[in-house]
């Protein structure tokens, strides 16, 4: 009798497997072509210089739209506290220039907890980025218990007044804990996108997350390096199959930016290694400019680790020329994000005053190239 039941179960399993194989579509592993950014007339605007009254405002990210963009950050008494919500400012460009909305709480812990499937407690929120596969969607770092080591990434569908539906991504057998996001997604030729994420417990490592057409996680690859603590991968595609990932070393002592590369569209990543570029254990932002050129915003000056500098590489990241410096003036400028806007301008956001506020600039590549701090690294 037992054997008969087990044979029946095996038949059910084989039928399910055949069904899954028939309906599953293989993932494309070729990066979408990089949009070349034209230099344009030199322009630079500061759109936001915000300072919080609550305590900390940190980790701003840029969400692009056809008519402009918005910037979203987490704000509360301090990071990982039970009073942190996500705030947003929208920017639209009209004939008279840029217009900004008032900062407002866009995603609260309570609202995202109610939108969760299944409904659950959310005690604090962290780094959040745009879900570029869905209009208005977000990937939010959520914590239900404990601190960042217990964080999960939730895919959030937004409605007019806040989160409509949210679901934690299935990324780790450790209850999906200790997974966070920081950097923007990367597009593939089939229209899908990959999400750079990272695991922040024990042997830290970067993750490269792919999704099936039904929005569920369908593949995860790793970026790891023995003896290193690589987190917050910032991935820049160079052509259809090659890309470079810049990673923060969580270990403050080494003081170097980390790097990993892929030559097969992200299916495998080289062992993470140190570069010669100084880094005070802080994430960097980077943007492909086309033809192997990369723009980077990083705290890469060992004499002034609080300053944020804009550098351009003309040889796929092998060497860099510094073009502009944003001075920290005694407090750290951190967590930069760079995004290309629809009109070809470049938006830069970062936190200033050691997490006391958020600053947003919009510039053209022509303006950056015209700046001449001019030191190669």
């Amino acid at each position: 009798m037992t054997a008969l039941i087990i044979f029946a179960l095996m038949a059910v399993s084989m039928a399910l497997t055949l069904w899954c194989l028939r309906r599953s579509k293989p993932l494309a592993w070729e990066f979408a072509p990089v949009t070349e950014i034209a230099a344009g007339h030199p322009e630079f605007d500061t759109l936001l210089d915000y300072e919080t009254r609550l305590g900390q405002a940190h980790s701003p990210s840029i969400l692009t739209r056809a008519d402009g963009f918005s910037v979203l950050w987490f704000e509360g008494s301090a990071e990982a506290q039970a009073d942190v919500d996500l705030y947003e400012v929208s920017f639209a460009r009209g004939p008279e220039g840029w217009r900004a909305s008032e900062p407002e709480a866009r995603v609260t812990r309570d609202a995202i907890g109610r939108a969760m499937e299944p409904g659950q407690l959310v005690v604090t929120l962290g780094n959040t980025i745009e879900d570029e596969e869905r209009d208005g969607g977000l990937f939010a770092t959520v914590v239900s218990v404990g601190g960042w080591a217990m964080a999960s990434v939730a895919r959030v569908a937004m409605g007019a007044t806040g989160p409509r539906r949210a679901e934690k991504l299935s990324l780790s057998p450790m209850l999906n804990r200790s997974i966070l996001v920081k950097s923007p997604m990367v597009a593939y030729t089939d229209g899908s996108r990959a999400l750079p994420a990272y695991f922040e417990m024990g042997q830290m490592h970067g993750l490269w997350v792919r999704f099936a057409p039904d929005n569920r996680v369908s593949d995860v690859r790793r970026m790891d390096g023995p003896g290193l603590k690589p987190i917050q991968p910032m991935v820049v595609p160079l052509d259809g199959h090659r890309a470079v990932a810049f990673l923060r070393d969580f270990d403050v002592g080494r003081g170097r930016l980390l790097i990993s590369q892929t030559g097969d569209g992200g299916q495998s990543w080289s062992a993470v290694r140190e570069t010669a570029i100084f880094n005070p254990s802080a994430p960097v932002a980077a943007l492909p400019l086309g033809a192997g050129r990369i723009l980077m915003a990083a705290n890469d000056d060992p004499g002034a680790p609080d300053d944020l500098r804009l550098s351009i590489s003309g040889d796929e990241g092998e060497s860099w020329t510094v073009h502009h410096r944003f001075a920290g003036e005694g407090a750290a400028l951190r967590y930069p994000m760079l995004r290309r806007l629809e009109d070809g301008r470049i938006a830069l956001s970062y936190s200033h005053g050691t997490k006391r506020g958020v600053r947003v600039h919009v510039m053209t590549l022509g303006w950056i190239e015209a700046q001449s701090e001019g030191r190669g690294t």
Partner: protein
Amino acid sequence: MSGPVTYVYVGVLASWLGYVLFLQWTEAEMAVVAGVLLGAGLIQGLRNSMVVRGLVAVLEPVGIVLPLLALWHMVVTVVPGAVAWTGGWNGWALLAFLLGYVAFLAASMGVTRVTAYPLGYRAGPVGIMVLALCLVGLVTGQILLPVIAVAGQVMWTLRIGSSNWFDHVLHVLLVPVVAVELISRVL
């Protein structure tokens, strides 16, 4: 769909917890009834409470393995003859599972460069693993193992809950559960 199913899972676990508590004062049959009433009441009446939402947040993804083991435990206590039909758990097999599972978790945390967890996203490897567990059940006369493997595959195929099959058939709470079971057998 994953929301209601998770509440059912948590309800079963709460029932089992109630059953274990009531077993101190009453017969097994009464303890099962009282436990099921407690679990159902908790999920029905306190679904939006801090307790249940916190429990879901801590346990998620719950998976099918813990509820099935809880149900099995209650059934074999009330109907002792059921063990002969379903097959028991061999101590060495439990030890091998515990060591293998801890190694699996450690690999997923980056201790080794290779981890088996991503195989749980793909139909082919999942199908092979389920059939392998069915064969183990066939050889050992243990029916619960194939039931868990195939039930997990059903939930995974129907896209209810996690997109990784391992999350349906394993749960980190199995580590203390199996460890306590092994220690109690040694004592």
